[in-house]
């Protein structure tokens, strides 16, 4: 378990975040050691007479065979795992592999057919309706892919909803909801309705609603899947940071390996309702249990190769310093450009030459362009991963120059190029659509 902590704190978080948290919430962490969530031999079978599936004659049949023979759909099948305190446990698998079913049975939004299920030492499967409601109101919260916000409630009312259900008074509710909204960076949006918010902001409200009750455990079912790549990444980064501070025990569903690798302390890979492998991210990559898991990891390595080199474009217009200001102006006018990248005789990157500059030089009667006069955004290495370029590309008004070790200009990166690279469909999604 210590390994979990060190892995986390050792990780780098690029870019600034807007998430902040009150310091006093840091201290509360459940005692190390015991599992917070413990699942053993859990089954969920959909259909009439689900118990039939356990008959001797059907033993060992696959999910499809069982469905053909009994008409019952096996949602999850003999699943066992533990989630440790403050751990972020990822459930991953293709569409229909049972991730959502599993995470829902943890709070009995779906009743398990068979098996042992305990959370915080309480036997969830044995809880009465009343106990179950109390459990949902106090110990555990959930965040949904489709947000599940109440459209007729304001942002503040939505984030206070869990508190309202458990009967907190008006003042406490509002205080806690406001604090939770501040945590997710939504201060100032309290009186808006969800409809007027972007998807990313709506999911922040969903997160605030889950955090407001200060639960021990957070369940998240593909919380970022519905969002644009850029927003998704931003929320992931903020979330990593937030988790660093609040240290909740989290069960997190995703079908995106990058997300799993980025967030997960351990990853459970599911197929046809079964867990195929549970391991730390490194282990999953280096030592996949079978071809199914390997298929996921292969997808990771290909997408990991999205580097500056793979997404860069030609500069289109290039100026050469020896040309002098008049030639440069002629070229800019001809190409209808206000500026262009400039290189020296060895094609080495010098900077960006603007029309303002050449105009001034011509006015002053100057025949030479000095490298020092150019605007010079820092060049990036061709092997830099594109996720590390997000902050840079958006920041300046010019594209990023890509240079090799000698300073030779190889290409330029525009924000659009990165977006396009990210929009190429995720192989895992493709596989699941098939």
């Amino acid at each position, binding site marked *: 378990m210590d390994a979990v902590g060190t892995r986390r704190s050792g990780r780098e978080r690029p870019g600034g975040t807007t998430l902040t948290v009150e310091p006093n919430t840091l201290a509360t962490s459940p005692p190390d050691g015991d599992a917070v969530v413990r699942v053993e031999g859990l089954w969920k079978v959909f259909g009439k007479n689900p118990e039939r599936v356990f008959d001797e004659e059907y033993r060992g049949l696959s999910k499809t065979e069982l469905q053909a023979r009994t008409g019952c759909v096996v949602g999850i099948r003999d699943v066992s795992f533990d989630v440790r305190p403050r751990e972020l446990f990822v459930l991953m698998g293709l569409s229909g592999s049972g991730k959502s079913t599993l995470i829902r049975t943890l709070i009995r939004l779906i009743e398990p057919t068979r098996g042992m299920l305990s959370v915080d030492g309480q036997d969830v499967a044995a809880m009465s309706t009343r106990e179950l409601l109390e459990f949902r109101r106090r110990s555990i*919260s959930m965040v949904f892919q489709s947000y599940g916000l109440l459209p007729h409630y304001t942002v503040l009312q939505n984030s206070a909803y869990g508190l309202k259900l458990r009967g907190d008074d008006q003042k406490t509710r509002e205080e806690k909801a406001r604090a939770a909204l501040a945590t997710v960076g939504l201060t100032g949006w309290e009186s808006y309705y969800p409809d007027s918010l972007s998807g990313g902001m709506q999911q922040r409200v969903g997160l605030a609603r889950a955090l407001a009750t200060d639960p021990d455990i957070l369940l998240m079912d593909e919380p970022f899947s519905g969002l644009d790549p850029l927003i998704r990444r931003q929320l992931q980064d903020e979330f990593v940071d937030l988790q660093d501070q609040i240290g909740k025990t989290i069960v997190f569903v995703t079908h995106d390996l990058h997300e799993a690798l980025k967030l997960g302390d351990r990853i459970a890979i599911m197929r046809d309702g079964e867990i195929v492998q549970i391991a730390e991210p490194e282990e999953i990559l280096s030592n996949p249990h079978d071809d199914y898991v390997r298929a996921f990891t292969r997808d990771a390595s290909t997408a990991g190769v999205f580097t500056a080199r793979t997404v860069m474009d030609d500069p289109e217009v290039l100026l050469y310093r020896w040309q002098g200001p008049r030639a440069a102006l002629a070229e800019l006018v001809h190409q209808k450009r206000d500026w262009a990248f400039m290189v020296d005789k060895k094609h080495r990157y010098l900077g960006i030459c603007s029309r303002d500059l050449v105009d001034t030089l011509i006015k002053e009667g100057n025949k030479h362009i000095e490298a020092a006069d150019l605007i010079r955004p820092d060049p990036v290495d061709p092997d830099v991963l594109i996720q590390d370029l997000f902050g840079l590309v958006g920041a300046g008004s010019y594209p990023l120059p890509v240079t090799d070790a000698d300073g030779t200009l190889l290409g330029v990166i525009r924000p659009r190029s990165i977006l396009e690279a990210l929009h190429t469909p995720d192989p895992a999604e493709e596989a699941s659509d098939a």
Partner: protein
Amino acid sequence: MLEFPDWLRLPLAGPVDQAMAWILTNLSGLFDWIGAVGLRILISVEQALVGVPWFVLVIVVGLVAWRAIGKWTSGLGMAVLLILVGTFGYWAEAMTTLSVVIVAVAIAVAVGIPIGILMAWSDSVKRVLRPILDGMQTMPSFVYLIPALMLFGLGRVPATFATLIYAIPPVIRLTDVGIREVPSATIEAARAFGANRWDLLRDVQLPLARPAILVGINQTTMMALAMVVIGSMIGNRGLGMEVLLAINRVDIGKGFEAGLAIVFLAIVIDRISNGFARRRTVPVVSAAAPTETEDDAEDIPGEPEHVA
């Protein structure tokens, strides 16, 4: 030989008569009591309507219509229609008709919404009720007059009763539909935070079904108005009676006036209730100070502000 054989006749009339006779002998006290209470309610509503000075009512209706429809011209138009009813000389009759409609719709809503909720909650309740509601809506309206007449005799109480039965299906149906169409993701999220059945109903299902329920109330109201006119056949006074009298006397002019008065009344009621049903239910920003976390789902801030 080709006539329908006598021996195949299923004598339903007999048993129905007997059942009715049994009800009348054994439950007449109950129905008398219901009739008396109903009559008192109807009369007080009518007196309240008549008691209000006509111009006050016209102004109130104009303002309500303005608020419901959202345009002051519509408010003015509704007020003018109401004045026209008065200029035909049918103000008092219109108020009588209106009182029956109001009472019938109030009862229909009070009974229909809970039935609709049950129907949405339980598939078996729905299976039982759906054919009954279908039947009720295909039956010719004056068929309802017969049992009403037998239970309550002549007058406005049986007319209200028949109106209620005739007009109640839409509000039941649309409550059911509205609740069933609440996105399951929203329900699930509320359940995940520990909402029980009543929390769900109060916080999620009824508020989200509200537009559908309002459409149901609108339809129920229009059907009630149509039925009230037919209720004149069992002695319900009011605009319907005027039409009936005009027909009997072959007084085309009078009949035309009374008919037009009914149409105007219908338009006013329809526009107003439709306006409430269509009004935008979810504003962009709450107009009230954003300090309320209370369940104020009922009061909708009037003018939605827009995001800057």
